[in-house]
């Protein structure tokens, strides 16, 4: 696991360094007249904001991948009723939410600079926003149900239904012609190798980081669940011991009461006989 974390961090670091040193700037609007920079003719403005996508897209893809994992574990829970799958699904949802927040932050900053507004109800943004609300709703649902069995079942179903929005959000820019969100994942992306390589390095690096985060969180959540179960067992043992002590005390009292009444019975009989004689 540490090897994967180091590898993921190294790949992402290479992505960032490559992005700002070797990857060329994307061209924007036409210049009033061409200019030669470093021996190359430049006819358009250069866009720095596009550099955001080298990390924004890998983070977004990681959010979809981890959510797929959450839906898979939710399905496994419904099939097996094994609670460990519920914990795994919840953990994957947690990591999904973190990556969704990171995607939202970076995407919003790009939107603010390029489109001049913080938010646009554009198909990709809208479906991704719905995805975020669904993941938040998943945790609200988790906290609203006390019974562990019902909670796990309801959340598994909700998690699977929520995941339906992930492929919709991923594909919506291709399916809706009016979508103005840039499309990066396509066979004819036209990315030159100097841009494609850092992007792919970032993608694999971020997927590795997401997986390591999931595994670490899963270990901690499984331990926390075990602690909760142990606490419950101890409390039950305490309650049983208290009940047993109370039963013992009651039994002793009953025996004592019986012996007292047995001892007082001959005296009572004697007293009755004296009364009759009198």
């Amino acid at each position, binding site marked *: 696991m540490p090897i994967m974390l180091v590898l993921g961090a190294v790949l992402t670091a290479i992505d*960032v360094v490559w992005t700002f040193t070797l990857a060329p*700037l994307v061209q924007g609007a036409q*210049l009033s007249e061409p200019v030669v920079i470093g021996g190359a003719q430049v006819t358009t403005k250069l*866009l*720095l*904001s596009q550099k955001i996508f080298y990390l924004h897209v890998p983070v977004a893809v990681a959010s979809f991948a981890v959510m797929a994992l959450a839906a898979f574990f939710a399905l496994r829970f419904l099939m097996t009723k094994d609670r460990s799958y519920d914990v795994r699904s919840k953990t994957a949802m947690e990591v999904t939410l973190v990556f969704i927040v990171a995607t939202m*932050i970076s995407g919003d*900053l790009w939107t603010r*600079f390029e489109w001049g507004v913080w938010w646009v109800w554009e198909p990709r943004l809208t479906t991704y926003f719905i995805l975020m609300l669904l993941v938040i709703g998943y945790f609200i649902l988790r906290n609203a149900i006390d019974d562990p069995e019902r909670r796990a079942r309801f959340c598994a179903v909700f998690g699977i239904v929520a995941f339906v929005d992930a492929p919709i959000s991923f594909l919506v820019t291709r399916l809706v012609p009016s979508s103005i969100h840039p499309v990066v994942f396509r066979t004819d992306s036209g990315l030159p190798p100097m841009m494609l390589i850092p992007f792919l390095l970032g993608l694999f690096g971020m997927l590795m980081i997401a997986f390591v985060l999931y595994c670490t969180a899963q270990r*901690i959540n499984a331990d926390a669940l075990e602690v909760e179960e142990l606490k419950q067992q101890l409390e039950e043992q305490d309650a049983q011991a208290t009940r047993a002590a109370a039963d013992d005390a009651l039994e002793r009292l009953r025996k004592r009461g019986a012996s007292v009444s047995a001892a007082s019975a001959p005296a009572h009989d004697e007293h009755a006989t004296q009364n009759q004689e009198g």
Partner: protein
Amino acid sequence: MDPILSEVYSTVLPAAPFVIAAYVGIWLALMVYVLVLSRRAKHTSDDIEALREALERRESKRDL
């Protein structure tokens, strides 16, 4: 600066704070989660310690 070069880079400098903020935001979100996980791990280990002590106390009581 050459007016044409100034035009070429006119979108570069204004975008810089947004690009930096985006990169910082992504790492910040991940770091906050790592922090939450480390606190949760510490809390869990404290709980395990407390449970172990409770069990030991219970066993010593039973021995008496």
